[in-house]
């Protein structure tokens, strides 16, 4: 990626990270995203699963619910997504059904990633048009946000796991977790 392109993508990923930081402050899994059309941010979203008691309220859904209340679906064909963590299988499929142009993400999601982390919903056989994905933009920052969250106690889970003794690791090796499997 040439320096100009890199700076362009990093500019929007920084905005996505700001949304993830907001999620962390709101006691939500720190994942944030922005949708970009014609170099402009047209919508922002963050994970809201804890406060809605709905495991499907991911950042991409939240952002699109805002965008599509004002703009037609067809604009998504010229829209890119910047999201701090690789879209999950559910969101990857939603984005493909909507016809997203491209997806840029920070770290890979080894638990349920849908664009390379676990499955390849963006490119596998489907009735919908595939889309390109680019991972690894501010990957370390995205991972650190997740780690900050996971050292906290998740009180919503039925049997809270003891996490108090966990320490926040700060070193990230090149092929640590949240790296692509292949």
């Amino acid at each position, binding site marked *: 990626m040439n320096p100009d392109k890199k700076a362009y993508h990093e500019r929007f990923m920084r905005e996505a990270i700001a949304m993830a930081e907001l999620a962390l402050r709101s006691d939500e899994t720190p994942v944030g995203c922005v949708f970009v059309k014609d170099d402009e941010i047209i919508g922002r979203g963050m994970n809201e699963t804890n406060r809605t008691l709905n495991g499907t309220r991911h950042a991409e859904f939240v952002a699109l619910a*805002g965008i599509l209340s004002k703009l037609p679906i067809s604009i998504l064909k010229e829209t890119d997504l910047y999201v701090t963590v690789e879209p999950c299988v*559910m969101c990857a499929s939603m984005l493909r059904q909507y016809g997203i142009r491209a997806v840029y993400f920070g770290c890979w999601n080894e638990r349920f990633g849908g664009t390379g982390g676990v499955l390849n919903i963006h490119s596998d056989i*489907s009735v919908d048009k595939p889309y390109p994905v680019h991972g690894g933009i501010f990957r370390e920052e995205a991972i650190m946000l997740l780690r900050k969250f996971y050292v906290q106690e998740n009180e919503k889970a039925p049997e809270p796991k003891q996490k108090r003794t966990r320490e926040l690791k700060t070193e990230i090796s090149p092929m640590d977790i949240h790296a692509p499997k292949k």
Partner: protein
Amino acid sequence: MSTLTLSPASVDSRLSEPKTRFALPSRPSRHMLSNCLRAMPLPSRSEHLIVDQPFLFRCAKLFNSVISKAIPDLKTNDFQHLRRVVQFKFLPPHLQKTFRSSKGGVVLTEDPSEEDVAEQDDTVRYFLVSPSKAIQHAALVDAFRQNPPWCESKASPRIFYVTVPTFSPTSSEQAAQWSVEYWPITYKNTNPYGPHPSLVARNVAEIEKDAGKWLALAEKAAEQVYSQNLGERVGCVIVDNSKGRPEIVAVAADSRWRNPTGEPETKNDGPGNVMAHAVERAIAMVGKKRLRAVGKDPDTLDRKLFCDSPLTDMERRYYELDNLPSNGYLCVELDIYVTHEPCVMCSMAILHSRFKRCIFGRRMPYTGGLTADNAEGKMEEKPKLGDGLGHGIFWRPSELNWKLLAWEFTNEEDKENGKISDHTPNTLQA
């Protein structure tokens, strides 16, 4: 049809009898979506039988410490399905015969007649050591010669080689058969290739009586919104079957063609409001009911495009029932019935929501996310469009963070008569 007495709240009284008789497949193993994702099918019996020949010898105590010293890197996990210590009377007949008559190996006592008696004694144990390739015969003999009772005796341990199945059995029947043919086998409910048949059978018994009724209700819900031109003819019903008496928790229809102002959107080539698929709406209703149950505003952070408020009287009726406990988590312990195989997005939404079971009506080989095999039940590494996508998003326990049971609900009568129950295009994302 149903002999179960249901409370008025759990069945829609206006629900007519299903047009045709629904029946769960009589052979769940064929219809069950059990082969999840793997390119490899369930290993057949012949593939299990290998030439691994673990050492075998008799007597019980001290062996673990001797063996762990002699074979420090032994992976006992690889043969957990094989019983490690076995009494003579539980050996397969052919091994009883071999061991009784055998003068081979190294004999413990000089007197064969004494040995015969000892072998049939309940105090004698046959101990499975390791795969034969893990240690040389002489090295194993040496290891034992250094320990009691052999270090004090001229005798040596008797060591046999037996053929055993490499892999765990996939059913209790198979385990019983192998125990007679090869070596006593245990079987555990941890099949990585798909849910265990006994688990499937137990769950079928729990749901088969009412499954057709819930799917008929889902169809009716779909019809009501479809007829207002607000959605595709897809509907779903969420049922709590954990308290011994089934209770409907939520009913929702697809409303992808309902625009943000609530009016019908002109159908076009586009996908419509993907977030308003029936499954997404129903899951959102469960979340809102849970918020209500803990005294919070059900409309917290709600957005119009999620379309998760009831659209019909039927949806409202179940939405307004306070029948979820306040301490529940997502959709744990709940079952979801969908008229069509859910798309990949909805399949993963079901998994994210920790459902217990999913039962769907029509298989969607172009778009469905649950089936792992194609229409003929075969597995393909790279499916062709229309053969099923092969994702198997219900049982990928080593990759995804939840697993559930899933069934295609087939209507054998309709299949025989060549009837198609709805005219939804097969490329629809349900």
